[in-house]
């Protein structure tokens, strides 16, 4: 690979960082290798995953004979892919290697010290060299992209390892790892690219992989539809991203991060142009990061394998929007109105999704809405200019949400194995069929409790620090910041920020409640799986629990990466200082040039409030919910009133169906298909061209009379016109 070290003056140019392209290349090679291996055996797509076919009891009848053969020995599944061993090596192997390289690069970057105030741009080759638009394929290594790379490769490695156990019996095993490696490649491209177009490639690439993995078991229509939904909803956001890029190029003439950051200061503070650009960027972020109103695809995306939900739809891809806004920090800090929009949308999403999470029975759906809600938190963070807080929450969320998803995967795996052994066809993901799993799966239970405390905001677990920092930042911005002085839809910025803070607290309360509810119903109380199945419930193998343990440790201590100055002492605000070169300027502009300041008393009060709410939420759920009174899903009565509304997710999907999908389909069917396609394209253009050719041919054939008289006339007229041409020249 041609490495033009355009930043050769940079101290990182002489270190391992010069091989940063290898971090990208490794997953790509893994994709190619696994993709080729997946072609070595005839593909047998089918639901062999524990969570596959849930809610579709009939699907199990189709492959009952395969299950029978499977009963003789768990380790020798007849459908297991012949190349599975190689894939198990390559898939997680390339990720581990990439993580090692990322770690080495990280150490080199730490060694560079103050030199990291300038990003290390590694130009690989020219991509679009056209006139004013010069876009090289260049990688940008700076503290922000380094954090993202570490999260992606680190958690990616763990999830790949988990997948080895979770997906081992799937006939599409190599295909799965090929997609997963491809996803990691695109995600790394997204965060490592040095310009918006490169980010967009990664952006679209992860969207593609998300689509492929949601519809991994594409033989079931619901899964395929979920993939299509994710893809189409994301297109709306991509439109915004594209428009933002066009506007940036039209006004700044460059699309590289360094160029945009330099040019951003030239915009009018709070001007219409920069606000428009930021809002379009945010539209892109709402699509990819599942914010209102484009969040609807994420819950459906749980149709994919559970590790995919953990990696793509919780830890990495959905946080791309947060990364994008943090990356555009200088731009956003010029547009307070856009920032307030981001914060308000984030807060509303956080609360809205949390309410839905309160009443879901599917364990993955609870986590899905929880993810949407936590993403809302991150947007609140980056929205109020606390980019470090947003990225901090992104990181801790990646830890505990990956842990929660993998834990739920472990639970589903156990449930499925149990139902499998007894040939039952109950739903392996419905919490009403679980209960008391603590006794059968102690490791998973303990680790998931850690994650629950983390997400709930109990100190000293990681989520507490990141969530508290966001809320504190919102509170701090209500005074003495560009946001407080701006107006948003006629409201003063400080009022909006107080509302956002209140919404954040409400979301925190609900988060504690629904997470505790999930834990209670899953792991506590009596077991509702069934007496025959209880004997088959057991902890997952070590290849799955191992990553869980690592994630559990990270969830527990991840918060220490950015302790508040109040309690941290010499260890405080590590991440803040680390990210300072990238987002510091933007944050400072929002806070009017001074570091945000809250009196210690206020800070203690805020922490106290947050902890009280978290503890209160857990206590509320613990005392009010009675897992003992639950009955299995098949025997449950239908919910009524508000519960039913929440279970049906506020009927948002139905509303979208009525207002957007059906009219679109109607217009497509009547106007676009029958009118435009069948009428104008087929009728006028295609058949019209045919008629035109036939008509002209008919006219021509009329000249061909076969009578010499006609020919004589034609000949003479031709001669006359030629002579006329000579005569009048």
């Amino acid at each position: 690979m041609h490495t033009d070290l355009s930043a050769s003056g940079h101290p990182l140019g002489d270190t391992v960082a010069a091989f940063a392209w290898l971090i990208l290349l490794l997953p790509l090679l893994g994709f190619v290798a696994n993709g080729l291996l997946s072609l070595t055996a005839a593909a047998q797509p089918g639901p062999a995953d524990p969570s596959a076919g849930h809610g579709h009891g009939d699907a199990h009848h189709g492959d009952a004979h395969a299950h029978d053969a499977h009963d003789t020995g768990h380790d020798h599944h007849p459908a297991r892919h012949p190349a599975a061993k190689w894939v198990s090596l390559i898939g997680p192997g390339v990720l581990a290697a990439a993580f090692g390289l990322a770690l080495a690069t990280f150490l080199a970057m730490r060694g560079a010290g103050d030199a990291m105030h300038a990003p290390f741009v590694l130009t690989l080759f020219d991509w679009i060299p056209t006139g004013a638009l010069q876009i090289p394929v260049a990688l940008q290594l700076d503290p922000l992209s380094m954090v993202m790379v570490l999260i992606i490769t680190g958690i990616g490695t763990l999830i790949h390892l988990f997948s080895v156990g979770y997906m081992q019996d799937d006939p599409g095993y190599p295909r799965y790892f090929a997609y997963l490696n491809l996803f990691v490649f695109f995600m790394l491209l997204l965060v490592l690219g040095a310009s918006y177009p490169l980010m967009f490639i990664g952006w679209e690439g992860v969207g593609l992989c998300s689509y492929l993995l949601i519809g991994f078991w594409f033989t079931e229509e619901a899964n395929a539809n979920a993939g299509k939904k994710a893809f189409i909803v994301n297109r709306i956001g991509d439109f915004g991203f594209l428009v933002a890029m066009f506007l940036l190029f039209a006004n700044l003439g460059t699309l590289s991060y360094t160029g945009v950051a330099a040019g951003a200061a030239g915009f009018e503070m709070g001007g219409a142009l920069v606000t428009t650009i930021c809002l379009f960027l945010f539209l892109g972020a709402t699509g990819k990061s599942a914010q209102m109103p484009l969040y609807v695809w994420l819950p459906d995306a749980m149709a994919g394998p559970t590790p995919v939900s953990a990696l793509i739809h919780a830890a990495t891809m959905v946080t791309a929007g947060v990364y994008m806004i943090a990356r555009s920090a200088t731009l956003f800090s010029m547009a307070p109105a856009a920032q307030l929009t981001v914060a308000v949308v984030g807060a509303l999403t956080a609360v809205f999704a949390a309410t839905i999470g309160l009443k879901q029975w599917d364990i993955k759906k609870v986590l899905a809405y929880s993810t949407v809600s936590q993403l809302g938190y991150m947007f609140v963070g980056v929205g109020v200019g606390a980019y470090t807080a947003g990225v901090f929450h992104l990181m801790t969320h990646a830890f505990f949400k990956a842990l929660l998803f993998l834990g739920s995967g472990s639970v589903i795996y156990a449930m499925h194995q149990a139902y499998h052994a007894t040939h039952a066809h109950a739903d392996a993901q419905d919490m009403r069929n679980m209960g008391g799993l603590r006794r059968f799966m102690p490791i998973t239970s303990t680790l998931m409790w850690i994650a629950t405390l983390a997400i709930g905001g109990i100190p000293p677990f990681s989520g507490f620090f990141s969530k508290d920092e966001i809320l504190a930042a919102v509170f701090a911005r209500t005074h003495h910041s560009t946001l407080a002085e701006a107006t948003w839809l006629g409201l003063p910025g400080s009022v909006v920020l107080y509302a956002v803070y209140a919404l954040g607290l409400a979301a925190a309360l609900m988060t504690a409640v629904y997470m505790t509810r999930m834990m209670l119903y899953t792991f506590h109380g009596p077991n509702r799986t069934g007496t025959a199945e209880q004997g088959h419930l057991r902890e997952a193998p070590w290849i799955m629990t191992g990553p869980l343990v690592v994630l559990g440790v990270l969830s527990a201590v991840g918060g220490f990466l950015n302790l508040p100055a109040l309690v941290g002492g010499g260890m405080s605000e590590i991440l803040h200082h680390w990210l300072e070169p990238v987002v510091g300027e933007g944050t400072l502009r929002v806070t009017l040039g001074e570091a945000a300041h809250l009196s210690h008393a206020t800070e203690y009060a805020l922490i106290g409030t947050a902890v009280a709410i978290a503890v209160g939420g857990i206590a509320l759920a613990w005392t009010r919910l009675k897992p003992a009174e639950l009955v299995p899903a098949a025997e449950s009565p239908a919910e009524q009133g508000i519960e039913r509304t929440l279970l049906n997710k506020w009927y948002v999907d139905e509303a979208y169906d009525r207002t957007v999908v059906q009219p679109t389909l109607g217009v497509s069917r009547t106007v676009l298909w029958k009118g435009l396609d069948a009428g104008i394209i087929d009728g006028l253009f295609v058949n019209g061209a045919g008629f035109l050719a036939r008509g002209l041919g008919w006219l021509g054939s009329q000249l061909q009379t076969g009578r010499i008289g006609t020919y004589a006339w034609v000949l003479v007229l031709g001669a006359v016109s030629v002579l006329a041409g000579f005569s009048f020249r």
Partner: protein
Amino acid sequence: MDNTFHPLFYGFHFYLFGLIAIASAILFVTRKSPVAAALWLINVMFCLAVLYVMLDAQFIGAIQVLVYAGAIMVVFLFVVMLLNLGQPDDLADIRGTGPRLAAGAVGLAILAEVMVLARSRIQGEYAPAAAVELLVPAADAVGGVIAPVAGPLFREHLLAFELTSILLLAAIVGAVVIGKKQGPADAR
């Protein structure tokens, strides 16, 4: 033959035969009977032969009478009579008024165009008084009137001449083959 040139006498006869040629041509295209038309065409050719002679192309004038008026037109008349087309038949041979007017217009257009082109492209005019000293000697003692034509014909244009003879041969063979009554062997 004395070389005295009488412009008035010359001009009078030139115009006379020219007008006769035009009148005969008009009569030729307007006759319904093919035989009458052919006879009027022969008249045009005779007039042209006279003009050729007046233009000092005596040999061409002789050939015009012999080959054109004599041989070719006789073949025409022969065919007309062979096919018994001597009488104007019921089917209108001449087209209706519309085509006739259109043909007249087109004819006028061609005439105008040719006139314009000839006027603009052909430079020079020979004075009648100097006509005797022109490029083509009227007659010389040794070669007569044929040598000036025969010279170029058999020197520069010998190849074309031979090719033309082959063409004639092919035309004769073709005419025989086409005109031959088809025997039972050829009947389909």
